[in-house]
């Protein structure tokens, strides 16, 4: 899975599920868009669907430090790589 494909996925989920339109890739998601811990858990469910794979508790906990879209893309890329 390429980074562009992951980016398309993330921006679509932001738009369709979170009403976040075209966020700046380094915007603080919480400060700028009110993206909170509840949203993070929902996003992890979307990522599991994308990867067709359940995330471990350790993997999920790592996500709690994510603040920007770029960090989210890095995170998904690493998850995808670990599953190759």
């Amino acid at each position: 899975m390429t980074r562009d494909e992951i980016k398309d996925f993330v921006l679509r989920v932001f738009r369709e599920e979170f009403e976040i339109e075209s966020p700046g890739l380094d915007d603080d998601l919480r400060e700028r868009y009110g993206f909170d811990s509840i949203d993070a858990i929902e996003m992890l469910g979307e990522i599991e669907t994308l990867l067709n794979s359940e995330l471990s508790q350790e993997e999920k906990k790592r996500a709690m430090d994510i603040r920007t879209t770029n960090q989210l893309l890095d995170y998904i890329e690493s998850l995808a790589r670990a599953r190759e």
Partner: protein
Amino acid sequence: MERRVVITAASAITPIGHSEKEIVSSLLQGISGVKPLRQDDLLAPHIHCGVFGTVDYEIPFDFERRYRKTMGPVSFYACQVAKEVLEAADLDRDFVTSGRLGIAFGSTHGSPTVQRDIYKIFFSGSPGDFSSIGAVDYLKSMVHTTAVNIAKMFGITGRVISSCTACTTSSQSIGYGYEAIKFGMQDAMLCGGADEYDTTTVAVFDNLLACSNAYNATPHLTPRPFDADRDGLVVGEGAGAVLLEEYESARKRGANILAEIIGFSCNNNGGDLILPNTNGIIQTIKLALGNASIRPEDVDVVSAHATATIMGDIIEAKAIHAVYGDGPYVTALKSYMGHTMSACGVIETVLALYMMKEAFVAPTLNLDRVDERCAMIRHVRTLERVPLSIAAIQNFAFGGVNTSLILKRV
């Protein structure tokens, strides 16, 4: 310290309308909000009762996603009436977030619609489905979901009371809100209750043989409180909210004072969890009158709980007669919309405020032939155009809980 407490804004979503104008019009014209029970894929086909007090009009919710995401249908209702009350009261934003405004708001179950979806996953038999339980499902279905969704939406930081005593939920909300202000713990309280459309509640009452089922083809002819041909209650949906404020500060800021709360009582029958109890109700009524420091003859109108069950209405009529005699008008507002459960106390309070303002008492609908066992009190059978100074709103719940609220026009 004891302070006076007044109601400065009110709103309700009911089966007979949403705006004050619609609700008053329905009361004046005797229009019922009871409709056929909606079919579902779960319980409706098996329930004998085929009627429901239904909110069948569009409500223009305009909540942002960050608020919507933790709301089940019951919280949409709750936040809508809360929003309308706060807008009507026009409180200063700094006050709303100051901690001096609290919330007393509840529902019977949280959101049963969301709970049902969770249970469907539990019983699906597929362990992998557990991950499809949403992160927010608990927040939508927990018992205090209405109160905290309101708090979040408006940034309210005062105390939170979320009673969940079924049919006395919102009368307790108002009563405990009143006491919080009266004794100086808060300067204002946003109080109310809500319940969403739910066939589970109908099924429970149906199994207890407490639901109406003889009028399925003519929903508007049931419930029939105090009528000889009543055959049980009708479950309904709705929500209501009132804003309570300390009298002096409300007066100083030029608030529109709708009424003063002068008394509240709550007790328990100390026994049976289902059947109402004459002595328990008598004590509740007396406690409220004592709390208000008024005599029974000072009360102009009693809004009876009157669910239209056979025994409940007889017991309530006896209790009303034992304290009030045949002095005050007695009206049964559930005859218009069925039993809105957690919302009934606040909805009946809002309707009482409207009747006080417009100087009328709405007649009990479908009271064509008074049951002689309920005939000893002053039933309102046709519209009474009469000024009202003091109204008493009484409610009773499963578990033997009773409340009485007393309002006075200021």
